[in-house]
């Protein structure tokens, strides 16, 4: 017997006593730690993706948030913008090709509901496929549901990879969650009025669950009303008459319960079928969308190299640009992972360029825009038609660290990409994509 092998010397007993005490203390500590106040987690991981994925996959731009700011429950926020999908050679290996993609918003859980969503003006109830090297415009209409301060982003979910999150804007929602309503109609002829989708048939669901719980408890009580565990265990082990363990009355109860279960189950299903004869299977499938027409800008851009300087928090991107258009083009912006590095307006030549530039940055969330873009070596002037020039673009700002893009230093893939914007002399704005391997400077 195990009991005989126990050493009951004083030393061992003392050891066991101390171990038990430590274990008890640890259990209490863990239990109390679970009740410590925790601050609300506002973020939802938008800065935690690898920089090389964020800078080289989907680039969100020309974003607008209408209705954000201080709003009430049930108010609408409309997010519009464009998404550029870099070409295959630049598309990061760590993200699946966007053959099955889904447009939605990201926020901390379901604090906003999605009312409408469009890509290329097509309703996006279902997923779609995107072409690389092309730009798509999208629109999301969200309705405030939960009071609080929420950061709302557009997001593309890519099958096989997960969400690529665009830039977000803060919305401070006040009011009561209980005031939220998402109404509508359903049924072949719209005969079912849905007052609020978030409570639709909830009483009915709770009622059915409660009914089955009651029947389940009746069954369990029937058995445990008598001495249960140890007497029955002893009876089984010691071979008492089986008719005492399961009596004839028990069997009758079993028949009754079987009839009750089958009657309720089949009757309930038939009743539901008669009430809802016209039902559909869950809907799925890809809805095709078209990208925006290609911009006829005549700019050819090639990333040569890039360098991130840790001490200066500065990214330097060297690009070769050939202007094959008949217009003079000037660099106005480098945008990556939703962060916009723009030149100072007075560095742009011509009123048309300055007006376009000012319009593009007007109202953009301050956390994503920095007027720090410079062109080194004094070559910031517009690139003339037919000219070939190498630009050294420098974006120096702490936002590289704030947005976790400086984590590129620790990334297994040190490559930087982003949109380089040009404005021609007529004020037309064009976007191109450049990408290059990234060196790290430590001083």
């Amino acid at each position, binding site marked *: 017997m*195990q009991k005989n*092998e126990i*050493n009951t010397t004083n030393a061992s*007993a003392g*050891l066991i006593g101390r*171990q038990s005490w430590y274990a008890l203390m640890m259990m209490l500590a863990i239990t109390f730690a679970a009740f410590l106040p925790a601050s609300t987690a506002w973020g939802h991981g938008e800065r935690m993706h690898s920089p090389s994925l964020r800078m080289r996959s989907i680039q969100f731009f020309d974003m607008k948030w209408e209705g954000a700011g201080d709003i009430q429950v049930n108010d609408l926020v409309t997010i519009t913008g464009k998404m550029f999908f870099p070409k295959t050679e630049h598309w990061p290996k760590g993200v699946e090709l966007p053959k099955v993609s889904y447009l*939605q918003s990201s926020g901390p*859980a379901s*604090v906003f*509901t*999605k*009312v409408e969503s469009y890509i290329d003006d097509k*309703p996006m*109830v279902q*997923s779609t496929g995107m072409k690389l090297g092309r730009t798509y415009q999208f629109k999301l209409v969200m309705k405030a*549901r939960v009071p609080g301060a929420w950061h709302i982003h557009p997001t593309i*979910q890519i099958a096989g990879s997960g*969400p690529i999150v665009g830039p977000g804007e803060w919305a401070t929602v006040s009011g009561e969650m209980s005031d939220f309503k998402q109404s*509508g109609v*359903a049924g072949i002829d719209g005969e079912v009025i*849905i007052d609020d*989708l*978030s*409570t*639709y*048939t909830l009483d*009915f*669901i709770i009622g*059915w*669950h409660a009914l*089955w*719980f009651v*029947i*389940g408890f009746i069954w*369990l009580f029937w*058995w445990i009303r008598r*001495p249960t565990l*140890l*007497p*029955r265990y*002893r*009876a*089984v082990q*010691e071979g*008492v008459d089986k008719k005492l363990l*399961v*009596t004839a009355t*028990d*069997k009758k109860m*079993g028949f009754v319960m079987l009839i009750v*279960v089958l009657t309720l189950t089949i009757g*309930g*299903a038939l009743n*539901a079928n008669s009430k809802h004869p*016209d*039902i559909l*299977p*869950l809907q*799925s*499938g890809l809805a095709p969308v078209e990208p925006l027409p290609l911009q006829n800008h005549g700019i050819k851009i090639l990333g040569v190299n890039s360098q991130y300087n840790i001490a200066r928090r500065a990214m330097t991107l060297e690009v070769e640009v050939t202007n094959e258009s008949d217009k003079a083009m000037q660099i106005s912006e480098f945008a990556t992972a939703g962060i916009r590095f723009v030149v100072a307006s007075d560095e742009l030549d011509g009123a048309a360029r300055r007006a376009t530039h000012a319009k593009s940055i007007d109202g953009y969330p301050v956390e994503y825009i920095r007027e720090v873009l410079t062109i080194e070596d004094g070559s910031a002037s517009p690139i003339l038609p037919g000219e070939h020039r190498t630009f050294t673009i420098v974006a120096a700002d702490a936002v590289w660290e704030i947005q976790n893009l400086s984590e590129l230093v620790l990334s297994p893939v040190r490559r930087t990409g982003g949109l380089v914007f040009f404005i021609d002399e007529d004020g037309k704005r064009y976007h191109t994509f450049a990408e290059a391997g990234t060196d790290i400077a430590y001083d």
Partner: protein
Amino acid sequence: MAYSDAITQELNMSTNEEKAYRYFDMFVIPITVVVLGAAFHIHYMLTAGDWDFWVDWKDRLYWPLTSAISFTIFAAAVQGLFWKLVRMPIGMTVAAVALIAMEWISRYLNFYLWAYFPLTEVWPATWIAAALFVDCVLLVSGSFLVTAMVGVFFLPTIFVLSNYPMLAPFRIPTSVMGQEVTVADWVGYTFQRGGSPEYLRIIESSGMRVLGAETWFISCLLGGFVSIFIHMGWWGIAGIAARPYSRANPLAAYMGYDEPDEDAEIVIDEYEGAYKSEKK
């Protein structure tokens, strides 16, 4: 106080002994239900998972199949233990009641209060009717084989039928931006999930596997067929677990005890109760 229970009388228990066992029941049964429920809940979340979490995952093709397989693994073992140890046909019902109770707690606290998903999107499917059906088949037949071949075979069918009254209102058509979808699709579209968007719903498509209009029926039968073997396997494992084994603790030296002999063997403990001794 005298008890009139036939089993305790047959075992010649004293009133005090019977009373002590009753107190034991009062403490151990609730603890057993909570522990079983918690363990089953984790298992069910990890295996049936999204099919049970979301109203727009409860499809005709995979939901009956995955749910039944996942449920049977755990519930068959509990049913086997209750039957072999105490000869009570309540194991599956205990597992189902505990699981659904834990699910409601989780859906309310985690999904609704913490993550703001409405309960209409995250209500759990009930298993109690299907579990009662199988337990009653076990009681009436008294046979493990009949329970597996008849009870478990129809387990997914009873599961789907008993949930259908709750699910049917979510399958009626509605229109979202001019597209006809089910109300369940609309719920999933409206109350967004960060990590499980439309493309991740592994739902039936208009392919060969849809099997005409009989998807429910075929899927339930396939789920039942697979579950028969799962039930048999886990009932068998429960049988092994129900046998009281003991062996010398190999870590005894680290716990303050004497080190056991190296050639100590695993032994099956034989129960030698007073009643059995008297019969001998």
